[in-house]
């Protein structure tokens, strides 16, 4: 019964989306305020119905209602309760419903927190937002209905793909979707601005919190996904340059660029046309990501069950939205006048530099990801573009950007002093140089590039601290005085420093792991001892155990240093009963920033078992860096100047383009 209500609620949401996508825009054309006012309540109602529908599906999963095709195919009554919840989005239909739920939620939030927006802008933004949900609701109802029944209902379900039965995957897709879909708000704002044909600095002030929120979630989502792949797939890699990973990385790159160009637009009323374009591109890349993941056109380690007809439908949505938005842009953008001139060496110039390199890197990733598709369509030749391509293109593009990052915040708006900034960074440069020399000396005979890479990370970290340190006169004024200044510093300044610091940390982690990780693959029998990176690893025993919906073989190892035990590790190999599918559960020992990583391989005829052991120095920094970036983002978001729903700023009324 509840299932039918859920299905019906989804149909109602579609009907409301239809109203919300047309009536308000008609109202803003004709200047009818009553029609424009439809948008807000419609957005909230739409969210309510989609949420009801999602709740109904969740309920079916929790109760293991196998009369639903979707539940039968992706759940099992032995499955722990947590994974019954996460099964809801561990499949195509459910994950699309989650996508739409988040989209509708952003629509409702927009409606609730946009009291200070001009009425017609609000109506247009919500209408555009509703075009997107209209398309995706239709997609779900016509091609991927999660509420389809089976008659007669089977007794038992087929279980969720075991590799997805993991807490990392429970949180990864929602985070990623919050990021992807969050950029829809920027897209709607951009399209609305183009429809209205006017835009100003206030527009950037309204958009920035949304962009920042989406960026925070996307950063967390990508980072979670990377950590999940690292420990769940058992290969010990944190990034594979896999098409599906690239699909989430492209919106991140252009979203990061958007975040920076919106600052220029807000502060200096410049780069308006470019910012609008970035807003459109970022969400377009999010849609492209959805298409790549959901259509199965690419061979990827992350590609799950796919279906070509759905691919065609999403492709149609993709073409309509990207094509439509770009056409609108081409038609209306010339109406938007540029303002705010600046010298090449200035804060604006630095942010343009950032945008240039991020967009070029994004383009490189885009080409590397889609080139195999294009080549196959044109010539039939099958190729794969892997890590070497991306290392050769993405790497060199990031180096100048990372070197330039500490300069940006030190340059003044309009006209900056590069020499002055360089002088102020002298101490940072000297420290970085010292670190490079020490690293080179410590790892003598190792890769020289790695020492330089470490320098790049350290430069980013120290350079990020340099700017606030100077502003609070650290070590040059009494400590109490510095502390008072530190509290007085705007939170967005701290946010910038932290986010840049996090980038440095991630770079440092990536460099260290790539250069100095060691690997030991061997056959061990209980009682054997091996050694990695100064730690000895003793194989105690191999045992069998029965879990709720799997059987597992688990090995216990004692990790010790100089004969003193440090920790126990127990990697396992599971066999999920319902699907007869094996998974490898790794065991990871974190020692400050280093990790010792173990996975089990095949049992041997001779009685032992193959074991894979990695030592990964500084690997934790990769993800810790992203967490610091996110904290930086949150600090910026909490700055009262950007707070959503903050009192209307004095010049906050959208004025016609000058």
């Amino acid at each position, binding site marked *: 019964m509840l299932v039918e209500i859920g299905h019906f609620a989804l149909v109602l949401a579609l009907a409301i989306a239809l109203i919300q996508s047309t009536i308000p825009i008609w109202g803003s054309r004709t200047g009818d305020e009553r029609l424009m006012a439809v948008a807000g309540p419609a957005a909230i109602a739409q969210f309510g119905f989609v949420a009801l529908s999602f709740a109904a599906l969740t309920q079916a999963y929790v109760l293991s209602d196998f009369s639903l095709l979707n539940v039968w195919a992706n759940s099992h009554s032995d499955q722990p309760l947590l994974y019954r919840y996460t099964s809801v989005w561990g499949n195509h239909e459910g994950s699309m419903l989650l996508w739409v739920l988040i989209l509708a939620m952003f629509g409702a939030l927009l409606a609730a927190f946009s009291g200070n927006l001009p009425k017609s802008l609000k109506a247009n933004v919500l209408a555009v937002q509703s075009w997107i949900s209209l398309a995706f609701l239709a997609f779900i109802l016509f091609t991927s209905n999660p509420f389809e029944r*089976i008659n007669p209902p089977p007794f038992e379900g087929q279980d969720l*793909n075991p590799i997805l039965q993991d807490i990392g995957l429970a949180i990864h897709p929602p985070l990623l979707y919050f990021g992807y879909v969050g950029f829809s708000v920027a897209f709607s704002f951009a399209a609305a601005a183009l429809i209205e044909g006017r835009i100003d600095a206030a527009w950037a002030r309204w958009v920035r919190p949304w962009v920042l929120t989406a960026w925070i979630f996307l950063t967390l989502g990508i980072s979670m996904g990377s950590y999940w792949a690292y420990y769940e797939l058992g290969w010990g890699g944190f990034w594979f340059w896999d098409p599906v990973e690239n699909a989430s990385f492209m919106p991140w790159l252009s979203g990061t660029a958007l975040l920076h160009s919106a600052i220029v637009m807000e502060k200096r009323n410049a780069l308006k046309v470019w910012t609008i374009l970035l807003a459109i591109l970022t969400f377009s890349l999010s849609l492209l990501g959805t298409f790549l993941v959901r259509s199965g056109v690419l061979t990827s380690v992350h590609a799950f069950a796919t279906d070509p007809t759905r691919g065609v439908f999403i492709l149609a949505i993709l073409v309509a939205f990207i094509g439509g938005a770009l056409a609108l842009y081409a038609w209306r953008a010339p109406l938007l006048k540029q303002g705010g001139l600046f010298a090449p060496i200035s804060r604006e110039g630095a942010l343009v530099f950032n945008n240039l390199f991020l967009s070029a890197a994004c383009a490189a990733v885009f080409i590397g990801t889609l080139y195999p598709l294009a080549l196959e369509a044109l010539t039939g030749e099958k190729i794969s*573009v892997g890590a070497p391509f991306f290392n050769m293109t993405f790497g060199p593009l990031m180096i100048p950007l990372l070197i330039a990052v500490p300069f940006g915040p030190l340059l003044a708006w309009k006209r900056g002093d590069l020499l002055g900034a360089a002088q102020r960074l002298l101490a940072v440069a000297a420290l970085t140089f010292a670190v490079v020399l020490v690293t080179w000396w410590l790892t003598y005979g190792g890769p020289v590039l790695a020492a330089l890479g470490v320098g790049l990370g350290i430069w980013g970290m120290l350079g990020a601290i340099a700017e606030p340190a100077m502003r609070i006169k650290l070590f040059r004024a009494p400590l109490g005085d510095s502390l008072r200044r530190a509290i007085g510093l705007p939170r967005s300044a701290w946010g910038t420093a932290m986010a840049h610091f996090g980038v440095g940390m991630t770079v440092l982690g990536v460099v260290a792991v790539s250069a100095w990780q060691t690997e030991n*693959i061997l056959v061990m029998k209980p009682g054997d001892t091996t050694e990695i990176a100064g730690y000895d690893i003793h194989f105690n025993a191999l045992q069998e155990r029965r879990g709720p919906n799997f059987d597992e073989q688990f090995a216990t190892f004692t990790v010790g240093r100089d004969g003193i035990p440090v920790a126990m590790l127990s990697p396992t190999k599971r066999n999920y009963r319902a699907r007869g599918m094996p998974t490898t559960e790794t065991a990871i020992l974190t020692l400050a920033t280093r990790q010792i990583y173990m996975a089990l*391989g095949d049992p041997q005829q001779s009685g032992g078992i193959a074991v894979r052991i990695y030592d990964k120095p500084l690997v934790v920094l990769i993800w810790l860096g992203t967490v610091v970036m996110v904290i930086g983002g949150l600090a910026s978001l909490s700055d009262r100047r950007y707070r959503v729903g903050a009192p209307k700023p004095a010049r906050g009324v959208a004025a016609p383009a000058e």
Partner: protein
Amino acid sequence: MIGTAGGVLAVAAGLILFALTDQIVFFNSPTDLVEKSIPPGQRIRLGGLVKDGSVVRGQGSAVEFVVTDTNRDVKVIYDGILPDLFREGQGVVTEGAVGTDGQFRADTVLAKHDETYMPKEVADALKKQGVWRHDDPDAAKPQ
């Protein structure tokens, strides 16, 4: 400023073009590998079915198996731990190079997350050999 932008874009385009000619890996079926002369040391991807009964494992960490498209067979040597979903009779994609001794040595073996999933390249290669049967999508549903 426009000059800098142009410069960056030119460098980026150059890098991409260079990397595309140099750093891509071609996909081959066992038939392609046998019939085309691929110079030793050139990285390729080899995909097909893991031949039934061909997997020799449990002799240390190195594993040997035969990849087939039913027309030709190629023996693959892989030193490492196979992915969980690697099975006889299932699709697989391996990446590596033919050594000077004529043996194909893989350093990467990809099998997919989902046990019902066939890598697209492998499916296409098998279709070419006429041995692909398209699974009935309803076959998995209970009656």
